[in-house]
């Protein structure tokens, strides 16, 4: 029996809390069905770092620094369909709260003024990715083909969107299945 070739999926975690990836795992036993249809390549779940050529790329998180932008552009160039998963990727969400402040203040708050920091110093940007001036959602950098809102999107929402996309349809969002939180 000839098996249908599996759809290759890569996921990446940019500026976010990983809650959306957790929510993917929350589809529970349905992941077995999913595994029959797709093959997870690079992903925080598989811990494979290098993104290969894939059919579907899923992005969690906003674009906060140069590395985020690099990963996002790599993903876009190597996937056929790009899915934005969760509010950070779609709106900037919580990471974008820092857009209200000057970058210097933000870095100082994180590296020097933290309550647990005794002697802090500004990070060396040859080692730590340089922060972008503003946190932005991914569609402000690359073309996004499908959106799954939610903070995080719950497992059923992810399942619905993925199964629709695998069936070759765009998910239809309405009052019944949308949630921004």
């Amino acid at each position: 029996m000839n098996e249908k070739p599996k759809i290759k999926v890569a996921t990446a975690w940019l500026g976010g809390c990983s809650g959306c990836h957790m929510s993917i795992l929350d589809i529970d036993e349905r992941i077995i069905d999913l595994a029959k249809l797709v093959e997870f390549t690079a992903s925080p779940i598989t811990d494979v770092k290098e993104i290969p050529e894939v059919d579907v790329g899923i992005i969690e998180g906003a674009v906060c620094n140069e590395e985020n932008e690099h990963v996002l552009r790599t993903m876009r160039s190597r996937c056929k369909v790009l899915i934005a998963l969760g509010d950070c990727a779609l709106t900037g969400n919580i990471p974008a709260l820092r857009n209200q402040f000057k970058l210097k203040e933000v870095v100082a708050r994180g590296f020097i003024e933290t309550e647990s920091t005794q002697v802090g110093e500004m990070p060396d940007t040859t080692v730590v990715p340089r922060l972008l001036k503003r946190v932005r959602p991914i569609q402000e950098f690359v073309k996004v083909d499908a959106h799954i809102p939610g903070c995080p999107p719950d497992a059923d929402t992810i399942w619905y969107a993925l199964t629709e996309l695998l069936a070759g349809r765009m998910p239809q969002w309405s009052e019944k299945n949308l949630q921004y939180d």
Partner: protein
Amino acid sequence: MIASRQITVTINGKRCVGQDGQTILQVAQANDVYIPTLCYLKHLSPWGGCRLCIVEIAGSSKIVPSCSTPASDGTEVITTSPRLHHLRRNTLELLFSERNHICPMCPMNKGDCGLQHQGYVHGIDSIRYPYLYPSLPVDTSGKYFVLDHNRCILCTRCVRACEEMEGAHTLDISHRGANNRVVVDLGATFGTSDSCTNCGSCVASCPTGALFDKASAYRGKLNSSQIVRTTCLECPVGCSLEVYTRENRIVTVFGDPESPINRGHLCVRGRYETWAEPRERILQPLVRRNGKLEPTTWDEALGAIANATKKLRTAQKAMLVSPRLTNETAKTLKRLAGKFGRVATFVSQNEAALCGANDGEAVPASALDELRDADAIIVLGAQPSRDNGVVAAMIRGAVRRRGAKLLIFHARKSDLDRYADISANVVSLERAFWKQVGTVLQGAQRPALVYGPNAMTPIGVMVMERLINIFEAKTKGQPPRLVPLPVSTNSFALTAAGIEAEEDIGPWIDAKPLKLLHIVASDEPDGGARLLREKHVPALLDAIDCLVVQASYRSALTDRAHVVLPAAIWCEKSGTTTNFEGRELPLRQVLPPRGEARDDKVILETLFS
């Protein structure tokens, strides 16, 4: 009222009947046709700013906002079309991208936000415009609520509520274009605002989380809370409340929009003070042992009272009750009156005379409507701004929105003075002054005279007489509608039920040798401590052997008591109260009594049956 002409409008092919003068939105809503809205709120004037309620009219290429377009007979209206959907979606995307709408951290998240709801209705999964991420302040300086500009969509519902419901006009919009901002008192904060009365009508009208109550934030969704309608017991106006509760606690209190009395509006006392203030509840009976008040059981507390009263003659016992008691408690009291030498309700100065003057003379149940409609309002010896916030709001509205004349006599200074044609805190006897009063009142067609306790003083009576002379001599219109406005919640009904209103208990000390005084302070906010500031009361307390205080909140008075009985508060009571217009209003139990507290009526019945 002139009956308006009936009109017929076809909406989405459905034949809808409306009245001439109604807007397209009003006709649609009356016929159960849904049109999305954000800046529209039923009891406020239409604004037409959010552009979500846009509709198409057959034969016209223009798209119009249905909230502010009058419906005309025979028109055909389309409320849903790809073009309208596209426009509404774009509008919403612009709103989402304009400020920092971060749903997961908003107290209105999950169902209480109009913007979020419209995003869902329109299937918005992403925003195609670049986010502006403006840097905006959050004003947390207000006592009861927060203004977060990040979540504001400039629908101006708060601005209109502040102007049209409270009449304060604290809020407005400053700057231009994308820099538009809701502004408090031309750039102050809620904490430093002079004109804000903390009525909270702005919060109640905000469709997003831009304005929210501090005491309700993150305490549960409003849209799945239980709502119980009851009556405010803070003053004699009798506003209807919608109390939102979850898991036996209050989430928030809003005015009931269906109430003919307050029409959805509330003052700070009904809206916040009864539940959002820290007050120390008395949760179990207390008995004084070795000079200290100690918690005890109901049986022991009642036993202690029985012991203290055993050897006393009726004349040696007296009872003072709060004028907040329900009508049912008043009936019980009347029945028990024989067990005491004296039973009286303790009212503020001059209010006893007001209750006496009101005796048997019913105020029309439409007094508030007449006040709303009056073209000249005279306030004599009353303090609506302090005592009856909703009446003050009506007066401000009558003056500011309809140009009614306002005359204030013999009252303390208040914000109403600012709107008054004549404000005489100290009444002059000069001819010129009264001539001026006559000129102002000339031609008044629907005058109303609101008089409070201080109208019962010699000066008040003098003013009243002169005003009546002026009306007889100068104006050809109606004599003023008389609206007596007491300070205490239920003093009219209590005196009508035969419980004397007393403002001076000096004679109690001299006439009879009192041994026991039972004070029913009920849920008076200060736990009855106001009594201690009244003349003769400290002397009376010194003269007696046993003081029983029945109260909800700890106070200097309960601290002096020999026995303290925990009383239920407003939201734990059921029964009726009568407002100053004579309307009997229902009290519905919202929450079970906390701790060991019991309803005043139940306490009195257990004590004396």
